[in-house]
């Protein structure tokens, strides 16, 4: 293939990624050449501008692109699946930057603020690549861009021991997970001789028919276990509490939402694209269903362990980490039950609800823990008297995370239930419901602190502007989606689904 062919592609569809890459580059150069006097907050606002432009391009793609656009044998692939995830990432990182601006302004730990912003952007770029490729090499590159950015971000509080520890742990466990993933991929490559997911599905099916089912299983198992790292699901979940605790809160929120969503984008695409074809027409046996059965065990264990371990936590960020493990379990359910194209709607809706609730929660956690100088749950004592609206908003977020109406989180779960029961997976729904009830206990533990316990101080607590914006947007979104979920569900269904159905993907 010559250079000419490369220019023959219509590169405008890649504008979102190009924009983010450009802004990340410019930010890093600006950070380097600008004197020490320059207030780096400007870089944060500049990064937000970049995100706004990229969002515009994604929306433009959504409106104009009638069918998937593929670059260089699907190494990059602009389709509705990726676009929807990109919108999530962009919103998430925009929130994270807003939080970071307030965080850095008042932090005595984080000095190198320029890095903070452009690393968030490169992380975003990695996530976007993960969502829009159908080739394992590119997907892996995206995964690594995201990982490397987040490794550094976690260690940003240079003088803080916990932060250093968590960064180190994150690098080590992350590398192990990557190695495991690669090991699994090597098997799959060995059988298919390709990294392209569309070709792989056919070759793997051939290999399956020739009796190599077990070897495919090994490849699948290693790959999926490695990938659970990013979504912090069992068995690769142990890093989450330590890292969440050590990282600066905006970074924690970034890991909890953006990084996790990117992991889901990758897992869903790879699992469905390359394994759904493992079907033996003679015996009517589908290996795919067996593979999903293993994933459902991961989902069930994540729900159970995440929710029960969270019960014992006294540190708010560790609690949120376990809550995040449980949420990853819920989010695997749509994939496992595999109700045709509705995986997509269910996952995106749940992720949107989770994005709003989690960012809202972390925004308030950030303000409260910094004010009280402790991350203990007791920091929330008497919050209602200090900042009534923040406490009410926090209650709404926690209700959403717990899945209690009226909140977006309830409908996210409800939608997943609908699919799961329609498919007869009563046991998964049973676990999901039972563990949700368990989760009431610790979510309401925070609520109890806020409303029923006397705090050490009654001084009014003011939310900084950036935090306030995040909280208001998240609270409004959570509430409105709780009453009128069809706004989002139908938007996803109408604008994204036509070219994400399995028929086209296979």
């Amino acid at each position, binding site marked *: 293939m010559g250079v000419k062919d490369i220019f023959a592609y219509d590169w405008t569809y890649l504008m979102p990624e190009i924009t983010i890459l450009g802004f990340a580059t410019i930010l890093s150069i600006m950070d380097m050449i600008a004197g020490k006097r320059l207030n780096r907050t400007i870089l944060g606002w500049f990064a937000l501008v970049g995100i706004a432009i990229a969002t515009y391009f994604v929306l433009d793609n959504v409106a104009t692109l009638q069918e998937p656009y593929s670059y260089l044998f699907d190494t990059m692939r602009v389709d509705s699946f990726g676009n929807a995830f990109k919108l999530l990432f962009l919103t998430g990182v925009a929130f994270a930057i807003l939080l970071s601006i307030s965080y850095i302004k008042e932090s005595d730990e984080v000095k190198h603020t320029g890095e903070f912003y452009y690393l968030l952007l490169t992380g975003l770029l990695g996530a976007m690549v993960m969502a829009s490729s159908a080739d394992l090499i590119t997907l892996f590159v995206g995964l690594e861009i995201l990982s490397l950015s987040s490794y550094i971000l976690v260690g940003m509080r240079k003088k803080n021991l916990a932060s250093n520890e968590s960064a180190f742990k994150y690098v080590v466990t992350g590398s192990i997970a990557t190695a495991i993933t690669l090991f699994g991929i090597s098997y799959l490559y060995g059988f298919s001789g390709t990294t392209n997911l569309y070709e792989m599905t056919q070759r793997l099916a051939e290999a399956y028919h020739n009796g190599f089912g077990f070897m495919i299983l090994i490849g699948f198992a290693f790959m999926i276990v490695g990938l659970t790292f990013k979504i912090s699901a069992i068995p690769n979940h142990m890093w989450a509490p330590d890292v969440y605790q050590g990282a600066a809160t905006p970074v924690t929120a970034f890991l909890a939402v953006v990084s996790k969503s990117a992991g889901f984008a990758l897992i869903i695409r790879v699992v469905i694209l390359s394994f759904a074809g493992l079907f033996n027409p003679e015996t009517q046996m589908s290996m795919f269903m067996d593979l999903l059965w293993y994933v459902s065990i991961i989902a069930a264990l994540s729900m159970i362990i995440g929710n029960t371990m969270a019960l014992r936590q006294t540190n708010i960020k560790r609690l949120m980490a376990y809550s995040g493990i449980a949420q990853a379990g819920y989010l695997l359910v749509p994939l496992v039950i595999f109700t*045709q194209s509705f995986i997509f709607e269910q996952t995106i809706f749940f992720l949107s609800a989770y994005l709003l609730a989690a960012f809202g929660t972390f925004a308030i956690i950030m303000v409260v823990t910094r004010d009280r100088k402790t991350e203990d749950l007791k920091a929330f004592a008497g919050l209602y008297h200090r900042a009534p609206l923040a406490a009410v908003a926090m209650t709404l977020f926690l209700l959403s995370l717990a899945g209690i109406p009226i909140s977006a989180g309830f409908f996210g779960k409800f939608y997943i239930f609908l699919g799961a029961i329609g498919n007869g997976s009563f046991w998964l729904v049973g676990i999901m419901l039972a563990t949700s009830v368990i989760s*009431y*206990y610790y979510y309401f533990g925070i609520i109890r602190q806020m409303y*029923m316990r006397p705090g050490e101080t009654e001084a009014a607590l003011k939310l900084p502007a950036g935090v306030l914006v995040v909280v208001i947007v998240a609270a409004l979104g959570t509430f409105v989606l709780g009453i009128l979920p069809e706004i989002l569900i*139908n938007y996803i269904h109408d604008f994204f689904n036509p070219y994400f159905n399995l028929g086209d993907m296979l």
Partner: protein
Amino acid sequence: MDNSFLLSLITFSPLLAILILLLVPKSQITIIKQLGILGTILPLILATMLFVSFDYHQIGMQFYEHASWIQIPLSLMADNQTYYLNIDYEMGVDGISMPLVFMTSIIATLAAVASWNIKKRTKEYFILFHLLLIGMFGVFTAQNLLLFFLFFELTLVPMYFLIGIWGYVDREKAANRFLIYNGIGSAIMLLGFIAMLFVSSLVSPEPTISIWRLVEALTTPGNAFVTNVPESFKFGLFMAFVIAFGIKLPIFPFHSWMLKVHVQAPPAIVMIHSGILLKMGAYGLLRMGIGFFPDVAQKMAVGMAILGLINILYGATLAFVQRDLKMVLAYSSISHMGVILLGFAAMNLFGFQGAMFQVISHGFISALMFFLIGVIWERTGTSQIDELGGLAKSMPFVSGVFLAGGMASLGLPGMSGFISEFFAFLGLFGSHPVLAAIGALGLIVTAVYVLRAIMAATFGPTPTKYQQLADAQPMEVIPIVVLLGFIILIGIYPAMLSNPLQETLKTLVIQVTGIGG
């Protein structure tokens, strides 16, 4: 007047009070309390209009409202076809729910009056109180399973706060237990509701979770619903509803949360809890459990009767040995809820009527009793039977009404408790005479524990510290008189309640016996 939005108006009228309360500064305690009480007057007026304009002779839903709400794309079957699930905003009342709405509005107003004694954080208290009201009205008027569920859950969160912030010493534990038990109940309920949707999608091209549509489909003989759905599935769903609403009612092994709430919550909230919230369990059981699966219910009647017997005897026996008046009443509530189950189990018109009478009658009686306990607690600072005594001398009015309430509770003729128990047992004697005979034993024990508790608290020598106690204030007399008035009114003029109930229950009986028999 156009009544087409009456139910929505009733349900959401407490919002007005909430909005106004939000604007009042925290320090204006008296104004907040007045507004809190005034706020409940509006739904009371609207509910009275509902009661007056309800047509006794019409079968089926009245004041029906319908608007499309949520449309979710969904593929429920394995054939990869997209369905649109329509979840509509549907409200309506029939003979069963209309009296409950009316009762809710009355007890709510009286509980608001009883809340006059709330000493801290009055603004938040009344805001949550009105939120709770919205949930309760909504539960009784919603005609769509999801809407019902949302309102049901809407009662959960305000109740958690009302118990946890304004309760007595052990309030947080009580609130937690309330939350977890009811959370489990709600989870099972939700599972059942979604399974209903799944079933409906199996047999009809347009899946629905509209309550009356489901009832219609499930009770028409020969309908695809009835023939295509396996018996075991129906049985499972019925059991799911029994457990979900059984926790709320509460049925025997699931009752421990309710004892804690009765003891720890503030009196005004216990009035609501015992008077209305428990009845949501009975209502759900009748509407969903028996309403959806009359044939299964018919087969399970004996089981239900036995559960009812356990409730009656267990509650009554334990009420007998309690030292705390609140605990006596809490166990008494369990016992009385057993009568409701017995009425259901009778599966005939008398039984259902008895059960519904019991729902309403116990609502008023327990509201009255807990209000009185609140009055006594205000003055003496205790509700322990041992520490009380001789109150009749210093507080003759309160003690007198207390005795009257006790009489109503043990089923003295001329009061509402008599009618309900009479009908329930009459019904059960018709279908299961042996069980009814055993149940009647419970009535004797009831008389014993009620009299023991009331005598010990109000008669005997008056301890010196209680000699100067003031009798009921005008503010307290109103709720007492109103509640007692309703108890006696239903006792001497039961037609007031049986008229609206009649047609709806007749339809239900036809469904129960028509298919099951």
